[in-house]
């Protein structure tokens, strides 16, 4: 024990130092190690996740580009198809319209011709009857004597219909 006191070892001081060290250990563990290690772990996790996400995003982007290309291609094809069919329909329509209008025109023409003929015939009939009356009147005046009216008419009508 003489040796220990010569070296300055004192039970009270030793105990005080041990207690002090444990206090420091507790405080550092509570306020420094735990939060710092947690932050380090969290950061590691976050960076790992970030890198993974970036990789995923890159892959997805590639996929999207490919998809886009495919969609564009099909859209172009579809559009071409629509245009083609529209052209075809238009062509068909055009022919139909032309044919229809032609037939319509022909119909109108023939109708008109028929009507003109009818009118002409009607007019001719009227003229004929009027002429007969006129002629009979004129003959009456010239001859001055009334013939048998029926006979007279017959003659006139014959004369008119025998017109060259």
């Amino acid at each position, binding site marked *: 024990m003489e040796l220990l006191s010569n070296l*300055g070892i004192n039970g009270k001081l030793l105990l005080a130092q041990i207690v002090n060290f444990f206090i420091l250990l507790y405080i550092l*563990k509570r*306020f*420094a190690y735990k939060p710092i290690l947690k932050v380090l772990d969290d950061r590691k996790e976050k960076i790992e996740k970030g890198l993974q996400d970036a990789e995923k995003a890159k892959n997805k982007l590639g996929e999207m580009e490919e998809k886009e290309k495919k969609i564009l291609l099909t859209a172009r094809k579809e559009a071409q198809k629509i245009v083609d069919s529209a052209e075809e329909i238009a062509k068909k329509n055009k022919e139909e319209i032309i044919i229809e209008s032609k037939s319509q025109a022909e119909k109108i023409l023939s109708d008109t011709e028929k009507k003109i003929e009818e009118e002409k015939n009607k007019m001719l009939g009227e003229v004929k009857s009027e002429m007969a009356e006129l002629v009979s009147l004129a003959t009456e005046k010239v001859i001055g004597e009334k013939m048998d009216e029926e006979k007279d008419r017959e003659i006139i009508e014959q004369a008119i219909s025998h017109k060259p």
Partner: protein
Amino acid sequence: MEISLIPEVIFNIGSFPVTNTVLMTAFIAILIIIGAWLVKKRISLIPKGFQNIIEIVLETLLNLVDSVTQDRKQAKKFFPLVATIFIFVILSNWIELIPGLGTIGVEQEHHGETMLAPFIRSNSADLNVTLAIALISVSAAQLAGVTALGFKKYLGKFFVNPFKKPYFIGSFVGGLELISEFAKIISFSFRLFGNIFAGEVLLTVMLMLVPYIIPLPFLFLEIFVGFIQALVFAMLTLVFMKMATAEVAH
């Protein structure tokens, strides 16, 4: 100039002698507490300034512990003690670099002689401090061994039946192991005490001989020694803990 192996008593509180190393221990404790509080308060996922430094120190230590234990779970268990020993010891060692070492203090009467009791004396130049940490370190190793292997198996490392396979050799090796556990306490405490006390004496003497320029290389040397001793203390603690948890291989 007096060089004392024993830290000087500045004053007494009741029967408790307040030595200069007690003051320094309190100073370091306050420093560490403030540092820890700052870390806790300012911690964020995106580090900056002070947090960066602390993170570098702690992460390096953790990786070191990890490389020794080869086991993340065990590393996390051992890490607080190892890191605290490192931080406390390195700060204790570097106290001797503070200007005023061995010069600023109070005059005291001792056996009719006036002696200077300096305020600044490195913690590690007090056997009470080094012995305290050595006791904690070795006890921690025993505790680690007992919790990892179980009480009976751990005792089996030291007390080997002399009538079994390697016979008396086994018992002899077990006895040596037991003695070495106690030797560890002594080697731990005296290694640190010796290095830092010698450093203090060296710096004080150099300062007395040539006050300018010449002490500078010694100051740098002491920075280095302080770091190495702290690292050695922490690493040995770690290695002893790891060895205590290892299975018996006779």
